[in-house]
């Protein structure tokens, strides 16, 4: 069996922030009534993560669960555990109306790292990325230049950015332009002191 390939197989680029395609990442779409206790406990059992509230992402070890919509969350687990985790979630939810589907190959994930990472995203996404408004634990589904994307912070100076696989190259190219040397905005870095 051949090794699965991520969209850009780990391409990187250095500018005013570092851009790296993260590689394979397990992702599972879960839709259901998020107020149902079965959903929260299925997620906790399968991932150790708490059910995220509106626009939040929760983490436990290598697993994360993010809010996606009023009846949808995304479960992040290591790529090779996605199939088993999806099966586990599915079997835990046989008694409630829910949809569990492994979508690990449908998207690409990037890491954007460095003190200017906020500003690089601020050039492409209509989001208030000031430290007062955006920090760890928040996920934002939005527009990145001309495509849908979502992102959250993994530290004070690094983001994970997710987009659809087919536009991975576009997102990489666009991030690269936004991170070109000499393009610091000096807004959030200034606010950080």
């Amino acid at each position: 069996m051949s090794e699965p390939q991520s969209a850009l197989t780990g391409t990187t680029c250095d500018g005013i922030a570092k851009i790296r395609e993260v590689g394979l990442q397990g992702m599972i779409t879960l839709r259901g009534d998020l107020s149902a206790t079965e959903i929260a406990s299925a997620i906790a059992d399968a991932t150790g993560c708490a059910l995220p509230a509106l626009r939040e992402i929760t983490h436990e070890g290598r697993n994360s669960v993010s809010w996606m919509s009023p009846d949808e969350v995304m479960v992040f687990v290591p790529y090779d555990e996605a199939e088993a985790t999806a099966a586990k979630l599915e079997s835990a939810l046989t008694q409630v109306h829910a949809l569990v589907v492994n979508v690990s190959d449908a998207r690409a994930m990037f890491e954007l790292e460095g003190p200017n990472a906020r500003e690089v995203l601020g050039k492409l996404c209509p989001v208030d990325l000031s430290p007062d408004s955006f920090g760890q634990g928040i996920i934002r589904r939005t527009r990145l230049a001309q495509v849908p994307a979502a992102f959250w912070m993994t530290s004070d100076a690094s983001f994970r950015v997710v987009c659809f696989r087919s536009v991975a190259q576009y997102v990489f190219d666009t991030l690269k332009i936004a991170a070109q040397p000499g393009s610091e905005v000096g807004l959030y870095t200034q606010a950080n002191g």
Partner: protein
Amino acid sequence: MSTRLSTGGRLIDRTKPMSYTFNGKRMKGFAGDTLASALLAGGQMMMGRSFKYHRPRGVVASGAEEPNALVGLGQGAAFEPNQRATTTELFDGLSATSQNHWPSLEFDVGAINNRLARFFPAGFYYKTFMFPRVAWKKLYEPIVRQSAGLGAVPKERDGDTYEHFYGFFDLVVVGGGISGLIAARAAGRAGLRVLLMEQTAHWGGRAPVDAAADGATVNDAPVDKLVEEIVADLATMPNVTTRLRMMAAGVYDHGYVLGYERLTDHAPEAPGPRHRLWRIRAGQIVTATGAIERPLSFAGNDIPGVMLASATRDYIVNYGVSPGDRVVVVTNNDDAYRTAIAVKKAGLDVPIIVDARAAGGGALAQAARDLGIRVENGRAIAKVHGKKQVEGVSICAQAGEGGVLEEIACDAVAMSGGWSPVVHLWSHCGGKLTWDEAQAHFRPDVHNSPKGDAGETFVTPAGAANGAMQLGDVIADAGEMAGRAIAALGGTVRAEPVTASAPDEVPMQPVWLMPQGAGPKLRMKAWLDYQNDVKVSDVQLAAREGYESVEHTKRYTTLGMATDQGKLSNINGLAILSDALGQPIPQTGTTTFRPPYTPISMGAIAGTARGAAFQPLRRTPMHSWHEENNAHWEPVGQWRRPYCYPRTGESHAEAVSREINQTRSSVGLLDASTLGKIIVKGPDAGRFLDMLYTNMMSTLKPGKCRYGLMCSENGFLIDDGVVARLDEETFLCHTTTGGAESIHAHMEEWLQTEWWDWKVYTANVTEQWAQIAVVGPKARAVLQTLSDDDLSAETLPFMAWKEVTLAGIKARVFRISFSGELSFEVAVPAGQGMALWLALLDAGAEHGIMPYGTEALHVMRAEKGFIMIGDETDGTVIPQDLNLHWALSKKKDDYLGKRAQQRSHMADPNRWKLVGLETLDGSVLPDGAYAVAEGVNENGQKRTQGRVTSTYHSPTLNRGIAMGLVLHGPDRMGEVLEFPGTDGTVSKARIVDPVFYDKDGEKQNV
């Protein structure tokens, strides 16, 4: 002649000389100069030629309002036309060229237009180029195009980069003059998130220049000190962002502001983007945008050397540049006396101050007299002498018709017709104006402000922009108005005692024409709009010809339509119009202020969207293989799909034929990954799909596939595709490539708005899967070599699907066919798509396997008579038109579109219906051609009775085949129709069964 003074210049650094070129000539300036100040310092008063008459023009202003001094900047990939010399900061190596002249700035053939000026009145273009009609295309248009426009079009692709930035602030303060600084500090101290932007490279605006002339102080200190102090204060506030070289281009609904930041215009060697367009959401906006001085309308007011009084003062005080040795000042207000004082203090001569007011000026006039300057009240300039440079002025009485009282030699004229607040940003989003009789200007009507969604004011004008014209008033108004904006954001303002001491001014007196009784000869040389060459006489002519609306007059005369958008000319022009119409100015009103305030670069608007990032390009997991194998691309939405894979020396048509022949005779491969794939799951999934599709889906057994049609609620066919039932509760719906997102949205809309209580969830998994169609008689053989699973017709019959392992990859194999051949569509996770593709190529090598593109796909489906959404459908076609009655369930009570399809027009037997078309001579019918019928319609056009929807050369049948919609088509088999082409030829085609190939479907069912 203008020159550099030996001392002075608060903005220049004489220790940093810089060199630049103007029309190829090497010239010198200093750091801190603008191109305009450096040109003046070098004695270059004339900077361009006017648009219509090619008159010599010099710089008239010192800022964003400049209409004349437009140059082409830079070279090659950095060239940009129509740049204002007054706002261009000088840098070492700058290269500028003047515009709108041939062969040179000094000698211009086009200046003949000036001699002929009386033949070019208002509305000249409209009047002249009407007749004869034929002359427009051949004669007028080429000439007009040749002579239109000021600057040259760049010849190279823009070599710079640009970007956007999304900013979020409580308060945005526009303008870094005294008012803006005061407002920003107050908001900063109130703890708000503040952005203060200033379009120039310096804080403080006009106040320090004025103080240099009149000795005004703030809190008993020089005005400069206050500016320094506030700027230093702001720098200590982490909640305040300050930006120089950033202009607010526009104000829009909901506190949206466009900020145009010029990052490297002044330092082109610096890395990074050239411009940054800030897309800002502001809770409140303070417009502290100052005011612009108005010219006076007298004959010859456009001759190089005639400048605004404020600009004259700016060049002396800011840049140490003398506009001339003898400067005549002409005014209707006290402020221009500051210019006379500044000129005198610089050691230059002011032979006379011509004050149009009979009673003259106040304290400043006295100060001027005390310096020994001659002041004449109730006087006017009858005429300026000179061609390329002012040589003198004729003085007359303002109340008269221009009888010359005196001739005075001079080389510069400083004029002031009063000040107009910059109300553009206030007006962009609906702020109304009020006419201030005393100051003769429009200022913001704060009771009719731009309003947000809750009816709240979100733009507040402050300082001169609000009509406060004297230093003390400006400071008081800025504090008051900033307080309102801060209070609206819930902040509190600490009282800041700022007291100004400046000379009192007496009222100005409106002067719209100088002298007031100027006759036609003078009015024809009294310019209103410098850039578009509109004179007092033009506006008066327009009024005589019946133009009453200021908006119509603007378009007829082109007043205010140039790149400066009439910043200097609008008020003077509408005052002349009002006078000609015999009505007060407020009744005439202003033209509409629209963004941007000054032109912004196209690059800034595009941002990062250029080159490779111009548009998202969607790539399948096998995209790179297609690219490496010479795919000729077809754009399908944002996807690129291989149209065909031409080999060396092969035409596209030949490649398509080869791909079809290989597939029909042996085996071919298609990258079908772009097809939409939507999971529909839940206890009500079957019921839901029964409503969505015209046919029955709930009866489909797990492991089976069914082709289905989807209609809009208006009955029109919107999508088709194969549905596979994955398990009891789960369906996988395939859509067209273009329908993936829209059909998913269509499903969600019905689920969320209409059937919200049905237990169904959907997920768009299009990109999760790479999908490869393995097609042709050898398809099973190829697949079987990669799998131990049984792929025989018995275990995997036509219209069934199965999970198997292929080349070590877990896959779903759907036995469906869009070509009429034995066909398997194999879906694997996208990350393994390329591996499977390569494995299939390898496994099929012995059968000559090759990929085929979208054109082969289209031809093969047409040979089978299969419809294509977007070819046979165009949003007006219903399934019945395509003879797809078999797919319309009669057992179901309802489905989306059913009711609509019963309406009389939909059930009309005269709707055109699908047939096959076969040309008599085997040629290919032109795409979209119409079949003509007998007679003509009410418009005298030939009647039609059908049209071609798909047409191809079929290599399988070696002839042209087509499908079309024809009146009563299925009942007219064998009839011959005529299809006139656009080239005068007529194609004849016979109506036939649309299934051209393997009518019984034996090939796909093996």
